[in-house]
């Protein structure tokens, strides 16, 4: 038991503590980063990497641990990104009040929309969540009350933000904020999935009918996982807003959720380190491959090779497909050694038979 606690809490603590010293590294790592590690530019990228590690992990609570395929996770991140900013910039609220308000709204909305969409399962659930997220995206784009400023995006009113998070020299604070958020999400997820409700989530993923036969109501447990995941996502949205100093429509797009799905699958669904690593790697590569694509080595290549190499999303999409084909456990699956992991464990959870067709009568 104690060995488990050390493995689940001790090692992560050591890793996060070590990562906290990254902004102090005044070294240049050629190939990996253009600028020294401690420069604001690099820290911004690293902050984004850790933040997406955390966001991917919030998505994994639903997807990897409970077997819920949502295409609308972006909605809750967008609520964090937009609502906090609207409260601060458009309504001139106090920063902390705005954050409390945003979290409250996200929690209530996750309960309401979750309860509605969880009445259907499988692919239908994916579609309903996609539709709700699309409604949010339309709302942010059309901007009926002149709050989100549509395609222009909404820059945050920096006079209202805590001073520690404003200005280019404070990028290291933003990095620490993102890292702190990752640590919080990581330990909350560890605690949640090992708690007794968390074990029920995983049982639902493996076999929902069996959970029902045992006399429990899967609906309530799925809602728990959905609300926890969505509320944490909204908190991540607030960090996102601070890191990028405002809100833009990108976070509302359906593709934003798909990106999180890619991260989780690449890292390994249903694994804490997997989701985090997937988020970090994906974000880093997405940033870095742009630079590689325009580097002189690639410029010298023939056209057929140069074009795909200059498109990070093409490469990431291909990597993703290869992982689905050959490594369904993701990066974390490499450590699982033959045990079913990642996507293989989700096969039963998200089958079309569970979704829209009639309950299996003849089977």
């Amino acid at each position, binding site marked *: 038991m104690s060995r488990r606690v050390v493995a689940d809490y001790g090692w992560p603590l050591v890793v996060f503590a070590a990562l906290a010293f990254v902004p102090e590294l005044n070294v240049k790592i050629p190939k990996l980063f253009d600028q020294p590690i401690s420069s604001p530019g690099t820290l911004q990228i690293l902050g984004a990497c850790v933040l997406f590690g955390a966001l991917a992990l919030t998505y994994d609570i639903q997807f990897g641990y409970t077997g819920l395929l949502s295409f609308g996770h972006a909605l809750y991140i967008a609520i964090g990104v937009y609502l906090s900013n609207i409260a601060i910039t458009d309504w001139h609220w106090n920063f902390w009040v705005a954050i409390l308000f945003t979290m409250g709204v996200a929690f209530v909305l996750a309960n309401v929309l979750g309860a509605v969409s969880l009445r*259907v399962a499988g692919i*239908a659930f994916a579609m309903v969540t996609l539709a709700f997220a699309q409604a949010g995206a339309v709302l942010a784009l059309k901007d009926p009350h002149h709050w989100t400023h549509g395609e222009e995006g909404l820059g945050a009113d920096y006079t209202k933000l805590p001073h520690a998070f404003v200005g280019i020299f404070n990028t290291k604070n933003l990095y620490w904020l993102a890292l702190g958020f990752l640590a919080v999400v990581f330990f909350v997820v560890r605690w949640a999935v090992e708690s007794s409700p968390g074990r029920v989530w995983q049982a639902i993923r493996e076999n929902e009918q069996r959970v029902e036969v045992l006399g429990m109501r899967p609906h309530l447990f799925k809602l728990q996982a959905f609300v926890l995941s969505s509320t944490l996502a909204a908190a991540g949205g607030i960090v996102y807003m601070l890191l990028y100093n405002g809100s833009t429509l990108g976070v509302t797009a359906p593709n934003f959720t798909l990106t999180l799905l890619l991260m989780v699958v690449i890292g390994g669904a249903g694994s804490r380190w997997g989701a985090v690593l997937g988020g970090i790697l994906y974000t880093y590569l997405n940033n870095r491959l742009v630079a590689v694509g325009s580097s002189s080595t690639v410029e010298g290549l023939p056209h057929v090779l140069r074009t795909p190499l200059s498109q990070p999303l093409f490469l990431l999409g291909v990597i993703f497909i290869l992982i689905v084909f050959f490594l369904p456990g993701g990066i974390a699956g490499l450590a699982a050694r033959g045990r079913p992991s990642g996507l293989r464990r989700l096969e039963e959870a998200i089958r079309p*038979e569970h979704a829209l067709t009639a309950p299996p009568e003849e089977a």
Partner: protein
Amino acid sequence: MSTWLLLTITGLGLGAMYFLIASGLSLIYGLMGVLNFAHGAFITVGGYAAWWTEVHLFDGVHSAWLKFVLAALMGLVVGGVFAALVELVLIRPLYNRHIEQVLVTVGLSIAFVALVQGIWGPDAKPLAVPGWLHATTTISGAHIPNDRWIEIAAAGVVLFLLQLFLRKTRYGLIIRAGVENRAMVTALGIDVRKAFTLVFAIGGVAAAVAGVLGGVYFNVVGPDQGTSLLIFAFIVVVIGGLGSIAGSAVAAMVVGLTQQYVNYYASSGVGDMIVVLLLGVVLLVSPRGLVGAFSS
């Protein structure tokens, strides 16, 4: 009155585009259980193939109609072949692993848009179409753009041909039976896998029609045009009932008309919201869509 007529025809035109996309999605899901995110790529392939053909192959053709029709045909062929290849290379090896099939189509949709942007740039390409398509016809005071007629006619033709194919041919029979109960069809010794490739090809052709018509509607073909149409096509498929062509046709019209009316009479964007709401209501009342509601 004239505004109402214009909104109705435009709404039907939009519904026609949704139907062209939704029919393929619905057949593919009904038969194979794959929610095909790569359908947006099929739309893009159709549009780009038509544009590329116009610019590179038939640049010398003087008749605008001939050029457009040839380009459109090329779009359909390329769309169908591309879709069939996707099924053979990416979907078939993952037979019966539904989640992985869905994820592969997600990856393809993302990689493909990026590839198109890499090759032809992020900017949309102008599609040359006969002047008549951009002129308007006046009916009882309403100036209706002519391309709407083509969209409605194309959807009508596709609907007719699909029904003919599904009702009158052996493969149509296999597909209909497979949608009902795939295990039974397989047990009878029929190789459904050929039907898989076939529905992908059919879906690819129908989506390519939507891609070409999208090019006519917007004047341009863009790398992510497909993706934006796809979301509402998904909604249409679910409202109509997965696997049902007739359900998709009805739902497409309902969604297209609702969007046009409400976006005009209420305010821009409200129509989209209403459609989303409609999806929620339909799913909660009858999880199998309109078809489920009527058949039970």
